[in-house]
């Protein structure tokens, strides 16, 4: 412990006091802490310490780099833009406001087969899910099935709090703007026949979201009854209790809805849409070949059409054979 100050001639203030009296108690304790003599580590940068440290860190990073490189090379991903801004695009027609609902089909080819589980994401660009007024426009109490919040949503939801004197369920701007396209995938067989590929819609949300954070209003009645007295978000075509036929994926616990409600941090984002599970070890999940993508481009509101046109939609399929990437 090198000290700048040398305390050579400063003995502890002369001879000790005669016993008794307050003298003893007023003398500060001779502890390492109070006298600032705690054992200390003082890193001094010398060649002897710095160079080995650099070397060791370099050694550690070699396997990490190899790992990352291999993982990254094993990812297969294709990206399909179906926005339809280009007049040659099949979805160009859907930009016109009077075609509702609009269905368009895009075909694409996989050059290599996708071996493991496949994840389908939808991506949006320039969609400001991170806008402050957008982010706060929700009522977590309502989404958690709180009956009082269901009928009296939080003020944060304004102006999507009430519609025609009825509380909106789910309230708020996030829910109102929910992504609502339906994507279907077909494999083109040898005889040009279309074989639908099973897209799993459950298991795309976090377990905690599905089971803790989002809950339908309590009760044993049918869902429609439990949502009685509420109205659908302004832009929605159907109410929340009709999102899916599956009781376990309907209402607030609809996983598409849950995924949408977890707002993205950046204006260009992708969200998990569907899973394609690997059936068995013999066949690849998506063999190489031609595919059709069927898009139901649902125009929610005439006013929205203009806006949606600027959104670039992608289809991402990620081969996940290492299990490194998941949302």
């Amino acid at each position, binding site marked *: 412990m090198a000290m700048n100050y040398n305390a050579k001639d*400063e003995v502890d203030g002369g001879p000790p006091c005669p016993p008794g009296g307050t003298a003893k108690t007023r003398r500060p304790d001779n502890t390492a802490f109070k006298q600032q003599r705690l054992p200390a580590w003082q890193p001094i940068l010398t060649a002897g310490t710095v160079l080995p440290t650099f070397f060791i860190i370099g050694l550690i*990073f070699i396997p990490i780099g190899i790992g990352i490189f291999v993982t990254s090379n094993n990812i297969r991903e294709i990206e399909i833009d179906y926005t339809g801004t280009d007049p040659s695009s099949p979805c160009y027609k859907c930009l016109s406001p009077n075609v509702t609902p609009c269905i368009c089909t895009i075909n694409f080819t996989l050059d290599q087969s996708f071996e493991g589980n496949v994840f389908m994401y939808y991506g949006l660009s320039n969609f400001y899910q991170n806008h402050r007024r957008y982010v706060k426009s929700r009522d977590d109490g309502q989404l958690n099935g709180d009956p009082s919040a269901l009928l009296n949503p939080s003020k944060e939801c304004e102006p999507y709090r009430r519609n025609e004197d009825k509380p909106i369920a789910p309230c708020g701007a996030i829910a109102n703007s929910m992504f609502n396209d339906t994507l279907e995938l077909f494999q083109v067989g040898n005889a040009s026949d279309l074989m639908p590929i099973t897209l799993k819609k459950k298991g795309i949300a976090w377990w905690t979201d599905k089971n803790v954070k989002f809950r339908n209003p309590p009760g044993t009645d049918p869902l429609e009854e439990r949502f009685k007295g509420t109205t659908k978000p302004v832009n929605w075509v159907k109410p929340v209790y009709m999102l899916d036929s599956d009781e376990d994926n309907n209402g607030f616990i609809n996983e598409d809805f849950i995924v949408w409600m977890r707002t993205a941090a950046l204006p260009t984002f992708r969200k998990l849409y569907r899973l394609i599970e690997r059936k068995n070890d013999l066949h690849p999940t998506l063999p190489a070949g031609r595919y059709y993508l069927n898009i139901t481009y649902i125009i929610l509101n005439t006013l929205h059409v203009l806006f949606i046109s600027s959104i670039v939609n992608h289809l991402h399929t990620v081969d996940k054979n290492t299990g490194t990437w998941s949302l």
Partner: protein
Amino acid sequence: MKDNRIHTSKYSILTFLPINLFEQFQRVANAYFLFLLILQLIPEISSLTWFTTIVPLVLVVTMTAVKDATDDYFRHKSDNQVNNRQSEVLIDSKLQNEKWMNVKVGDIIKLENNQFVAADLLLLSSSEPHGLCYIETAELDGETNLKVRHALSVTSELGADISRLAKFDGIVVCEAPNNKLDKFTGVLSWNGSKHSLNNEKIILRGCVLRNTSWCFGMVIFAGPDTKLMQNSGKTKFKRTSIDRLMNTLVLWIFGFLICLGTILAIGNSIWENQVGDQFRTFLFSNEREKNSVFSGFLTFWSYIIILNTVVPISLYVSVEVIRLGHSYFINWDRKMYYSRKATPAEARTTTLNEELGQIEYVFSDKTGTLTQNIMTFKKCSINGRIYGEVCDDWGQKTDMTKKKETMGFSVSPQADRTFQFFDHHLMESIELGDPKVHEFLRLLALCHTVMSEENSAGELIYQVQSPDEGALVTAAKNLGFIFKSRTPETITIEELGTLVTYQLLAFLDFNNFRKRMSVIVRNPEGQIKLYSKGADTILFERLHPSNEDLLTLTSDHLSEFAGEGLRTLAIAYRDLDDKYFREWHKMLEDANTTTDERDERIAGLYEEIERDLMLLGATAVEDKLQDGVIETVTSLSLANIKIWVLTGDKQETAINIGYACNMLTDDMNDVFIIAGNTATEVREELRKAKENLFGRNRSFSNGHVVFEKKQSLELDSVVEETVTGDYALIINGHSLAYALESDVKNDLLELACMCKTVVCCRVTPLQKAQVVELVKKYRNAVTLAIGDGANDVSMIKSAHIGVGISGQEGLQAVLASDYSFAQFRYLQRLLLVHGRWSYVRMCKFLCYFFYKNFAFTLVHFWFGFFCGFSAQTVYDQWFITLFNIVYTSLPVLAMGIFDQIALDTSYWTVINHVFIWGSIATYFSILFTMHSNDIFGIFPNQFPFVGNARHSLTQKCIWLVILLTTVASVMPVVAFRFLKVDLFPTLSDQIRQWQKAQKKARPLRTRKPQTRRSSSRRSGYAFAHQEGYGELITSGKNMRAKNPPPMSGLEKTLYNSTSWIENLCKKTTDTVSSFSQDKTVKL
């Protein structure tokens, strides 16, 4: 009627809350946070919920309030303690005990020996004859000489007659309360006649009554009107330069904040205009009226709220906490604990620590601070031989220490045990009966103004007017020549066991022109002798030519003594012829009866008889320095800290101490003495000194004339840098008063700042403060004032840092101080260790703190570009609330409190580890709690984070990113630092090398306490003596009534007995005025 209560406290219970809150919200930061809070309550703007601000704000305000309340409580306590002191007051014709605070103007108070005076009193009567009383004014002006006060003769007749005192109905008309300690004018009207009053009749609050068993006085000024309180100056709130720096920084950061806000607001307007137009449909179903400029305006405020964490409120709290920690370390430091008085150092103000590391000027009191105010007889030279010095085994001269076997003073049963003068040779000479030695000691026992008294135990008690004389008489006593008693015309001493009574024929008193005093005595054998002691320069001129050899020898010895900083006096005698004396005495009588030019004639006669003296030798008295003063002064000046001595004491004494503690040395190029008595004189002296300084300086830099001309505009600063050589300035209080006038002020300052040492003597408490203020104001330097008495209070208060010497009788200095400890030498550790550490720690802390907050907050700025400038936060509001006060406060604090510097390297103790890992652990535990299912179940809207931590932290890539970021951020810095140290070593790196080398060499240097200066012929003459005591003695006025002085014819003719007091007064004022012309000492 004003009462005597004093208030130093600020609040009462009722006024505490409003006043304290008002004061607190005057601080820019607090007001700013209040403003933020209001902003956050506006929903359109609120980007963070209100608790993010109110929680820390309430915390901070409460903490500060509690601290202020405690401080004030202690002030109340000390006020109460003083206010409740008891004194005896004459009420309803009876003496009753009354609290100090209830004493009123006009009350008559009885004071007893060694009591503190409660208020400014008009002395009415005392136990001593002629209404005399002695007071010690150390608390007021630092002088420990006893001073005489005497009542008007009309009132002194009242004596202790309670009934007459109670009927006393005089009316005093006097000046308004002021802070002049040495001036008082007033008139007492009583019994139809008027008596003029002056300072000699007044006893001031803060004095202590000495050697007087009782006295009565009437209160003239009480409480805040007393001269003591008037002198104490105002308590100012002290701020450190770091405080100011921090305020400036904070202002800059506010500016920066506003810039950021503006940029983001503009961004928002543009975004709203171009992108938001389309996206807005998702936010507001029908609100088309929103305009982008207004949106930008709101965004500005929203961002101000979000980005406020760059100036977090916890900064101020943290700074306070760090300072508190440092203060505790000062309190706990055993190296600053003085066990003899059981006094630990105390940081009484906890907010100034880092300022200690930046002190440039130290203003020190002398008595009690640098010196112990103990005079010890150290050495003497008798007939050309030095006594009091021995050679140790290595042949080095050392001063006697306790390890030397104490001499058995068989010759003197009355010897003090504490007497520390051991020289066998001297004892041998005494026993052998060396006549010169005997004569020397006899002179010491005879020629003085000491009064003796035997206490009940039969011990001799000497009442000393000057501590030097005390030392000399005591020394003689211990060496077998015991001064027993005196009457106005006899002195009885015990010479080696035999009582001898000398007839005192004449007393040639001390004054500042003469610088000597003599007595003419007739011994039992009938011989008449003149014994004289005085400044060597004066006495040597008056020696008989036959003394030449001895003179050379003695003056060598004197130089040696002076070189050691001892106070020296030369000793000489003269055998007088009976006839000659009678003639001379007759002339003296004549001179005394004449009215015109009486003083001149008397002085001439004194000159006449004090010649052809036979030199006996010289004495050397040590004005004992406090332990370690020299080392401390040396190391402080090595640290480029300038030390100014401000003392109420005499010029000679002050200079002597300057030499004793190495502030003045003979190596100095010049010592300027400013002692002018008028404004013109002072101006002239200053001008000369400056000319001298610059003249020499110019001669050094002749080669750079052209260069100098070019820079003539900046001449002042240039010159200051280029002054080479050591200079010292000694300035007198009277001259200082003129020098502090505005037109010469700058000259004085310029001169003083170029001098290595500045000594101001005979200064009043207020002047001390003025000097400090002057340096503070015009030099922009950080100043420290250290002192022990009430006379230092105003200086302590006006300096940036005031240090009080504790463990003494008076408490005023300590109470006014920011730091207190028992010994001057602790200043070294306070400044160079605690101060430096505090400063470095604080700087590091600020860097660290601002770094972490900028890193934390600027994320929101960059995120603004991605979230449409909507003031969305990246972190949740709980994280923002807790980031500064919980998650990151402790590691920074730990560094701020515990870091020690050893040249650039940091200091990692177990505490740092505990705090860092503890903070991380706290972060995770709070994180998991907030993200748990349970807390979401209870507050779904406040804690909607359920599952986030779980899901994100199970991702391997998160950990990989953490690892990569850490390594990538730290490694370049490590590499850079390493390369810098290795390739371009800084000064501190070199010092580290040097230190290693020095460690081996050091032991050689350490055991040399006093480096012997090259002894030029500098007189070490200094003598704390006041004129006028000779007359007191010869007139017998100060003798107890129990042995009434037999009035001889000689006596009566010599002194007009009614006028002795007037003489005394006149002489005293003469002393003061003559002082300024007393320039011969050095120039």
